[in-house]
């Protein structure tokens, strides 16, 4: 008995099995089709499996039918029955409505309605002769954003200085014409501000006696002062460009301006707010919390409306804001409140051990934040960040409510044109808008996936 069981238990491998290629059915397209399309509806060995296979077949047929319907409707509207040429609305109207389309023929998209005024869709009421300035801005933006988005492109530092430090002002001057009315008192004001800061710094130096504090601070102040005065000078300088008031800006260009400013401001501001909300200092935490909860708790439209009443309260009398600047401020603040919560979510997920590991090595609070926790937190919440960006980009369409002619606003105004009245204009316009919005948001989404994969550093244990 004991002997027999011993025999059964004993096993010694005499030969090792070398690695072999997988069987043919396990690779390639055949496997893919089988696993993804067929396997779920080819199991009939029990009653349950048979029923579920049949259900699966019906489901598959239904999905195929639904896809076919959607594609065919879209195809007929956008291409099959669409009108591609024409010089006014009559080309897209049936004959019984003073149009040129024979009765009984389906009328699809009225593309000439779009192409005829594509310039307006792109640039709003920006004067045609000056539109090169918009295009030049696009080229500059692309030249800076594309290398910034490529992880291996050289010159990251100079690239980001140009993109975040120089480009905004170049774009402002190019688009608006610059030559702004910057009075001598602005210069005086900033000179006084820097003077006061320098004095405060000197007092601090004397009180705290921290070595090199004054020199270090003075250096930073000097750089900031040079930057501010350079900006004032550039904005006030007459480059000979015609002044284009912001009420003439519009279309996709305005949407991009608001969207990009919102994106560029909301991320850093959101990060600061998130840190502030987690701060150990009660006052800092309170301010951040109030800011975030107020902006998150109120609809964007309300804030946009209120901005015309509220903003002037915060600034000296006589300072008037044009609608665009108001919209920019509101959109940026609004999305930073959302961004702050996204970033805070990432920070919450960082294990305490990461802080302790960094502290034990002697890293300071800011070093720990900038080198250890924030990079990890941001990486974790890339989907949330891009979600907020996409939401922000689409929400810019709300500025049409306060009378700005963004991409959506310009369509509304185009639809009023009696010369171009046609039954499918509205559908065509919205389809066009949807496609353009989608191209931008989908690119953002893809870029975020790419970044996620690039930053993926092995498996978490």
């Amino acid at each position, binding site marked *: 008995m004991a002997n027999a069981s011993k025999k059964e238990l004993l096993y010694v491998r005499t030969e090792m099995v070398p690695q072999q290629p997988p069987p043919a059915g396990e690779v390639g397209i055949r496997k893919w089709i089988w696993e993804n399309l067929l396997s779920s509806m080819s199991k009939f060995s029990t009653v349950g499996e048979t029923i579920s296979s049949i259900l699966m077949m019906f489901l598959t047929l239904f999905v195929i039918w639904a896809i076919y319907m959607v594609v065919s409707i879209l195809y007929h509207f956008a291409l099959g029955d669409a009108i591609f040429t024409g010089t006014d609305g009559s080309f897209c109207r049936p004959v019984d409505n003073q149009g040129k389309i024979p009765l009984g023929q389906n009328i699809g998209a009225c593309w000439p309605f779009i192409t005829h005024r594509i310039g307006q869709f792109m640039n709003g009421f920006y004067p045609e002769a000056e539109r090169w300035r918009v295009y030049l801005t696009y080229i500059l933006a692309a030249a800076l954003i594309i290398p910034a988005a490529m992880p291996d492109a050289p010159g990251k530092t100079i690239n980001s200085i140009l993109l975040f430090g120089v480009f905004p002002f170049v774009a402002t001057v190019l688009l608006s014409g610059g030559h702004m009315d910057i009075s001598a008192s602005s210069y005086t004001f900033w000179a006084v501000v820097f003077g006061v800061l320098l004095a405060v710094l000197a007092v601090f130096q004397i009180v705290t006696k921290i070595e090199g504090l004054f020199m270090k601070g003075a250096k930073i102040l000097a750089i900031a002062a040079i930057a501010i005065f350079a900006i004032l000078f550039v904005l006030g300088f007459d480059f000979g460009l015609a002044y284009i008031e912001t009420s003439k800006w519009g279309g996709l260009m305005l949407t991009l301006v608001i969207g990009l400013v919102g994106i560029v401001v909301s991320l850093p501001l959101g990060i600061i707010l998130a840190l502030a909300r987690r701060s150990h200092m009660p006052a800092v935490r309170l301010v951040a919390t109030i800011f975030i909860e107020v902006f998150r708790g109120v609809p964007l439209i309300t804030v946009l409306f209120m901005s015309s009443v509220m903003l002037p309260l915060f600034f000296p009398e006589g300072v008037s804001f044009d609608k665009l600047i108001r919209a920019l401020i509101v959109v940026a603040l609004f999305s930073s409140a959302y961004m702050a919560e996204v970033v805070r979510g990432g920070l919450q997920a960082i294990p305490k*051990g990461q802080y302790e*590991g960094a502290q*034990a*090595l002697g890293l300071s609070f800011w*070093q720990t934040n900038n080198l*250890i926790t924030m990079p990890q937190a941001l990486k974790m919440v890339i989907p949330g960040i891009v979600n907020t960006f996409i939401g922000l980009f689409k929400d810019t369409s709300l500025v049409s409510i306060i009378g700005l002619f963004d991409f959506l606003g310009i369509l509304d105004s185009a639809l009023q044109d009696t010369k171009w009245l046609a039954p499918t204009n509205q559908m065509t316009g919205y389809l066009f808008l949807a496609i353009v919005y989608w191209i931008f948001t989908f690119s953002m989404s893809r870029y975020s996936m790419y970044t996620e994969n690039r930053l993926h550093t*092995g498996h978490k244990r």
Partner: protein
Amino acid sequence: MADAAKKMEISDEIAIEISGMNKWYGDFHVLRDINLTVQRGERIVICGPSGSGKSTLIRCINRLEEHQKGKIVVDGIELTNDLKKIDEIRREVGMCFQHFNLFPHLTVLENCTLAPIWVRKTPKADAEAVAMKYLERVKIPEQADKYPGQLSGGQQQRVAIARSLCMEPKIMLFDEPTSALDPEMIKEVLEVMVDLAESGMTMLCVTHEMGFARKVANRVIFMDEGQIIEQNSPDQFFDNPKSDRTKLFLSQIIH
């Protein structure tokens, strides 16, 4: 052997002095009247039942936890609320954790060079040379460009030790460095720690690895209920425990 023994000599310089130290978590008196003097070159093993305050004690030494009463002097610097002094101490005191706490978004080499570059302001090339030296010492130079998530637990803990050593600390603290590891990995980490002990490093080590304690420790400290109950040389401690609590504890861990 004679050489190793000589290296393990203890100087009479004082590395850490803790006197009358008490700590509370809210109402809970977690450390009670701790008095402990550690000489430079000493290797101390701290053991005791779960929740006895071992981690809390060594975490007070580099101010990951704040004590409320008494005095802690590390390397001649008293721990107070002065951030500058805390930073100074943290630069000289390395620490290894039970769960490694490596930075998962940085490569092994970057993990090791981060603090020297940012805290000690060492030029990058020098920091990398030092890092490679210590990675070789913990026997994983070939993993330098991998991310922590791609290493085994034992390898990660060795990286964590190398990371601390890159700051060239005078004192090393270990908080159960092997208790999250499989037996074969425990061995590779302990080897590194023995090597470190033989080089004369001042070490405070919370561990239940009794073999390690016998081999390198010159003192074993037993804690219970936030107090130091007994301390003795490892041989005396294990073979001839004095207090009943110690006897009970030893009977529980040595089956």
